[in-house]
């Protein structure tokens, strides 16, 4: 038997769990302000998540999916993207969405059960939150094909979880993207859990990055709690895609420190001990340690940031709570470009409302 093909999967990390640099940092990380901005974005994301959970607990928001502990993934990829790139998120990329101009009020409207939350005033071409797991991957291939056909130097960035890698349509999308050398980057937020199903019960594959091998494209792992590594690795993948070198898959290794959503109770299926262990990997604490050690971040700055983030989030929440629902007829408004005559009777029926 002779070997006809061989492959390997690499792993990248710059800061260890204590926030110590393991070697030279990528260029962008040499500028303290860049790192500080990454830090601020992660803190804002965590502050937003906490507020959203609080709103849900008090009956003022629907089910919500926090990204607690995974801020480095969404912030890292969010800053690696250019404004003109297109984001196709799952439902845990609020960090990236906020960076791209989706307002926190819009995010709250969405989770509060109002379609206007997906009518982003900012990134008009970004896709809305995608609840059916993995079904945004084919959209990303389609968007990337459109960008390629128009010869634009733009990239479609698609994010999904470890569980999503078991979906056939995610595989089909990656296979097609690689075949056509599309300008796309697929990022797996491997937070180790798909609700109650641990990573090890999702697939026998040693890594999720190797899912790329079946599609015939590069795949690699990155420490998803090291925002510098995420931004660097995803940034390189985006750059390759932008240059026409084709798509790739990045597996970001992180951990879901929260329940799956506010509707979930993780204590049913995992040990608190495991969770506390994982808190030691907290991406925010990690970068804060690095910045303080390097003298770029003070206690005062920290307190100011906490206060400022809180203010922003509160303002967004108030704007959300102050937004009245759409009129019922809105459900017919954007159903088709122009409402077919056949549906006028139904709209009239709706207008009659509950008059018996």
């Amino acid at each position, binding site marked *: 038997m002779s070997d006809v093909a061989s492959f390997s999967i690499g792993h990248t990390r710059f800061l260890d769990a204590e926030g110590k640099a393991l070697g030279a940092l990528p260029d962008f990380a040499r500028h303290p302000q860049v790192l500080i901005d990454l830090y601020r974005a992660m803190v804002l994301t965590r502050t937003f998540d906490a507020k959203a959970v609080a709103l849900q607990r008090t009956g003022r928001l629907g089910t919500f999916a926090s990204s607690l502990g995974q801020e480095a993934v969404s912030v890292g990829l969010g800053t690696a993207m250019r404004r003109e790139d297109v984001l196709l998120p799952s439902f845990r990329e609020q960090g990236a969405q906020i960076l791209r101009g989706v307002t926190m009020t819009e995010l709250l409207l969405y989770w509060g059960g109002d379609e206007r939350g997906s009518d982003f005033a900012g990134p008009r071409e970004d896709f809305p939150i995608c*609840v059916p797991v993995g079904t945004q991957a084919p959209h990303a291939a389609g968007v990337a094909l459109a960008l390629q056909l128009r010869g634009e130097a733009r990239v479609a960035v698609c994010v999904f979880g470890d569980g999503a890698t078991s979906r056939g349509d995610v595989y089909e999308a990656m296979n097609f993207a690689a075949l056509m050398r599309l300008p796309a980057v697929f990022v797996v937020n491997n937070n180790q859990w798909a*609700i*109650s*199903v641990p990573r090890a*019960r999702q697939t026998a594959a040693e890594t999720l990055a190797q899912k790329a091998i079946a599609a015939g494209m590069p795949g690699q792992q990155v420490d998803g709690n090291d925002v510098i590594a995420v931004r660097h690795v995803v940034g390189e993948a985006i750059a390759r895609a932008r240059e026409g070198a084709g798509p790739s898959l990045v597996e970001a290794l992180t951990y879901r420190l929260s329940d799956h959503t506010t509707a979930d109770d993780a204590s*049913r299926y995992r040990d608190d001990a495991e969770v506390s262990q994982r808190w030691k990997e907290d991406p925010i604490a990690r970068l804060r340690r690095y910045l303080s050690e390097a003298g770029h971040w003070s206690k005062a700055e920290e307190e100011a940031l906490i206060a400022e983030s809180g203010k922003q989030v509160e303002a967004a929440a108030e704007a959300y709570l102050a937004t009245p*629902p759409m009129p019922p007829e809105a*459900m017919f408004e954007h159903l088709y470009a122009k409402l077919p005559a056949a549906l006028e009777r139904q709209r009239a029926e709706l207008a009659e409302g*509950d008059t*018996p």
Partner: protein
Amino acid sequence: MSELTLVEAVRLALAHAMEEDEAVLVLGEDVGIDGGVFRATDGLLKRFGPRRVIDTPLSESLFVGLAVGLGAQGFRPVVEYQFMGFIYPAIDQVLSHAGRLRNRTRGRLSCPMVIRAPYGGGVHAPEHHSESMEALFAHIPGIRVVVPSSPAKGYGLLLAALRDPDPVVFLEPKRVYRSQKEEVAGDGTALPLDRCFVLREGRDVTLVSWGAMLAETLAAADALAEEGIAAEVIDLATLKPLDMETILSSVERTGRCVIIQEAPLSGGLGGEIAAGLADRGLVNLLAPLRRVAGYDTVMPLPRLEQHYMPSEQRILRHVRQVLSYA
């Protein structure tokens, strides 16, 4: 004998079937230690072990295909889809294989299975969690489609489905999961499939519905009763095959019928019922056949969903119109 919710009744029926038949397996996302997102399989892993309660990867198009293979080998898989909104990738296997295997092999191979999924709106769930697409399955040959309307119905019908030799799509209205408690014998007695249940007798008008909408339908019947109008209320229970005989004989007496469904109007199951009446029962009709249904729109997110779903008031409005025909 105790008061149970629908989700408890489902759990009880699953446990009973697994107890009485080694061949019954439960598969799905989070059905194991988590007990299912609605807790319908809570405790089954502990009681029957990981060989019979299997947490699957996130692969919806796979599950029914797995069940076809398991069923052909003599097992009785019960596949849980976490929400109906995620069952669509499985339609290919239901249509192309599950509903056909027995026929295409002339009975050599068959694949008994129960495909369970919570469905319907009214619980302020996230996007894609509240649709009612039962009609897609009710058009597929070779399968059964069953929808329980209460805890007791849930227990008896699910047991029947679990003992049935053919594939059954069993859709559980999540609005009913915990909204009402009912006496459930829990003695392993199944309810018959393939027939409707007359929940209330009445001579003036026949109200036909299924699943969660029976709450509003019965409330409307109560309101009518106070006005001295006796509405007969029929619970479809088995949507496919459809027991038209029970509906026909009711309308033969009442001469009037209103069908209530949560699903979008067009192409919904209400059309099939009305069509059956308009053919075989036309001579008895004293008034137009009216359908009160969800609109042909995308199911709105929670802030507007109550405007989408047929309300008691909307039902009453149409019943009154139907009664207004001399």
